[in-house]
């Protein structure tokens, strides 16, 4: 039996005393593609922030690569793409290269010392995502889809083993979304990167994910056999009928 790459054990979380997640248990194995879905306000983003250690659960433990997230130090194993609608300034006056490069961090002054290795990693990350031609463009000059690819390249610059993405396609049109999902599938299948994504895109979740996590009613229901879950089931979930969660396995 493999040690899960990520494990949440009896995790509960409250905002100002109001519980939003209760007794959440889930395991993510290496190579999984987990899509977290659920209605607005179901605490999907909160759950993701708990997973990466940005929020501390009131109760329970988060283990990542077998270590408690509180003591975890191997940050180069984790890639994170936050919601672009949040506090990130997408008009930030920096080039694509500078933004991707900024995430190559492995300690004070080490970015200077490992300059050649750093530059090689930035180039590779840009190529993986297919935006190497945009490297000298300013972030504010790019479309929503291109910006998200920059954030993906930024997360990939450290060669992570697991990628966390919080609603990455919310500002994209349909073709850009398709393109972005194909890229994620490719990273998951060909490079073996474990992917955890918060999404409202039910069709994508059913088609590409290997696990679906329904976040609803302060709980998370994991469907490991994605074949069981149809788009219709999940549409019910989004319409506040929890058909998908009726066939749940916690």
């Amino acid at each position, binding site marked *: 039996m493999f040690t899960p790459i990520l494990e949440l054990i009896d995790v509960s979380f409250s905002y100002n005393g109001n519980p939003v997640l209760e007794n959440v248990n889930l395991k993510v194995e290496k190579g999984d593609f987990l899509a977290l879905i659920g209605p607005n306000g179901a605490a999907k983003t909160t759950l993701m*922030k708990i997973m*990466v*250690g*940005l929020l501390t659960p009131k109760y329970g433990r988060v283990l990542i690569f077998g270590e408690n997230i509180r003591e975890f*130090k191997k*940050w*180069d194993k*984790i890639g*994170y793409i*936050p919601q672009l609608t949040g*506090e*990130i*300034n997408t008009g*930030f*006056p*920096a*080039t694509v290269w*500078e*933004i991707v490069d*900024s*995430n190559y*961090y*492995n*300690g*004070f*002054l080490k*970015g200077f010392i490992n300059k050649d290795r750093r530059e090689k990693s930035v180039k590779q990350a840009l190529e993986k995502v297919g935006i190497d031609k945009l490297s*000298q463009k*300013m972030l504010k000059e790019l479309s929503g889809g291109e910006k998200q690819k920059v954030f993906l390249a*930024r997360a990939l610059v*450290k060669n992570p083993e697991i990628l966390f993405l919080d609603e990455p396609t919310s500002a994209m049109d349909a073709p850009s979304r398709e393109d972005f999902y194909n890229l994620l599938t490719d990273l998951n299948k060909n490079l073996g990167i474990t992917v955890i994504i918060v999404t409202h895109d039910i069709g994508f979740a059913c088609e590409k994910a290997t696990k679906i996590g329904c976040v609803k009613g302060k709980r998370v229901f994991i469907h490991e056999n994605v074949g069981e879950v149809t788009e219709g089931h999940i549409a019910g979930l989004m319409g506040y009928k929890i058909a998908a969660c009726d066939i749940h396995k916690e």
Partner: protein
Amino acid sequence: MDFLSISFINRAFAAGVLTSILISTVGVFVVLRRMSMVGDSLSHASLAGVAFGMLFGIYPFYGALVFTVIAAILIEILRKAFKKYSEVALAVVMSAGIGLAVVMISLGKSYNRDLFSYLFGSLIAVSEKDIKIMGFLGLAVITSIIALNRELFAVTFDEESAKISGIPVNLINLYLSLVTALSVALSVRIVGTLLVSALMVIPTAVSLQVSKSFKMVFIISNLVALFSVILGIIISYYFDLAPGGTIVLISSFILAIALLIKGVRSGWD
């Protein structure tokens, strides 16, 4: 130019060059973190420090240094307490700074020429001692900013991702507050407490209009500040004007030109 042989002008230039590079570099991070008003809050705290120094017979520059550092720490604490309304922290510290300054000025009856030199900046007030303090602290701040530029970029751009990269975000935030405080305190001698925040913000505002990379934001911001300070010192010497106001007017004029050129190029879109 024979005025270069005047010793106080040389000191003013030395202080001006250092101040302009320092304050405009820190200004980039301050503006991009949407904390443009932090300069105002800190400079008013520095005025309280000057008044404290005058009241208790301590060198006012030291008072300014200590008070701005305390104010910077207070701002960080209050920013955490008012997470969603972080500008409250700036308003509170600024008001407290003015209040404290006014009370101590009236207690010490120190409405004198020296106080005005701290309010509006002065060419002749920069002493050898000031230059030594400015040189030592200024170079230390600039060196540390260069050494920490990757951390500062990451935290300024996206704090959450910076945390997940393993950057000690709280420590970097505290560091940035302290260097901002030191930069303000070091700049009040030449620009004055009332106008130091303008020199922190305007050069960055100019560079944001024209820069094509993050590196260029710093270069242009430094050049605008340097040009404004040097020209400001020359003009204020020949026309007997307060250097702070002259410097700020020059940088505002450059900003107006940058906006005009950008407007014409984009067809006022």
